[in-house]
């Protein structure tokens, strides 16, 4: 086992395993830059969002909320809720790194994304362990690609007068659709039925809430309600 770990735990292998996900990062990063420009954000602000927040969904939502003049408190709470899923991903990965220092563990957590999480759990399923150097290679490659793509998107966005006519604003919805389908397709057959039922509840609850709540608050309330329904109605 030790030799397998040593053999596989190289920074460059982490970089290699990150490559298939780069197209995703780059296309969404570029779309983010374009949407950022359309939301009247500057290059410095767009870059800072990618460097500090480093989360596609929350950055798009930040733009959307900022554009319509949402109060800062709502933007912060929504960002928090949108990223709360990372708590679960961190909880899943953290046990693999208990032998590493606290500082390195903070590093792994800081650069965790949906995609690196997906690559890491797939890797762990094959090799049963994860190397710290491999994880750094994966994380740092994804992080740099994301920042570079956002900057590139900002430059492109300055040339495109109205990104809406090009359908670029739909990148966000399309990304959520893809992430939802990917999550559903990874679910076990028995869970899938339960998940589909919950999406049915979600349609009803979102429709009703949309009558009297702004959409970002409806998302927050509906998510907490339907997750609770999920716990209450699950079969033991």
């Amino acid at each position, binding site marked *: 086992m030790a030799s397998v770990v040593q053999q596989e735990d190289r920074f460059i292998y982490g970089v290699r395993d990150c490559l298939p996900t780069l197209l995703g990062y780059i296309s969404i990063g570029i779309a983010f830059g374009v949407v950022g420009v359309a939301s009247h954000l500057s290059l410095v602000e767009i870059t800072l969002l990618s460097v500090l927040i480093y989360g596609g969904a929350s950055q798009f939502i930040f733009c959307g909320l900022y554009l319509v003049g949402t109060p800062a408190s709502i933007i*912060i709470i929504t960002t928090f809720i949108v990223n709360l899923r990372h708590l679960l991903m961190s909880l899943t990965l953290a046990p693999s790194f208990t032998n590493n220092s606290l500082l390195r563990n903070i590093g792994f957590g800081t650069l965790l994304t949906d995609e690196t999480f997906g690559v890491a759990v797939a890797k762990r399923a094959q090799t049963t362990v994860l190397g710290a150097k491999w994880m750094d290679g994966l994380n740092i490659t994804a992080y740099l690609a994301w920042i570079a793509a956002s900057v590139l998107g900002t430059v492109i966005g300055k040339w495109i007068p109205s990104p809406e006519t090009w359908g670029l604003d739909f990148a966000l*919805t399309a990304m959520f659709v893809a992430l939802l389908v990917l999550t559903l397709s990874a679910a076990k057959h028995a869970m899938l039925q339960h998940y589909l039922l919950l999406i049915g509840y979600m349609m009803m609850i979102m429709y009703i809430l949309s009558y009297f709540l702004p959409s970002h608050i409806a998302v927050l309330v509906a998510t907490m309600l339907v997750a609770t329904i999920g716990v209450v109605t699950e079969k033991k």
Partner: protein
Amino acid sequence: MMSATMFLLIVACALVTWLPRILPFVFVRSITLPTVVMRWLSYIPICILSALVLSNLFHNNGRFVTLHWDLFFAFIPTVIVALWTKSLSITVMVGIIAMACVRYFATAF
């Protein structure tokens, strides 16, 4: 450039996204979350993703909540491609193209 308010807002958002990411890595040895909380958290991805998709599709016109029909017509091929390819990048690209086509035909006719 950037206002101080904007800078603080970005920093605050960064902080609330950073904490859920790192806290499990910091505390995983000393605390265990109650099972019911873990169960609840396991439903969050599906719930939040479907809520976000739906919030984009629904439109409150002041009296009724209806579908954004142009977005809905781009949504259908996007779902089909997502189910078919299971690829994030292909889905995003097809979604953008579908949306551009819908808008093009909506203005052309």
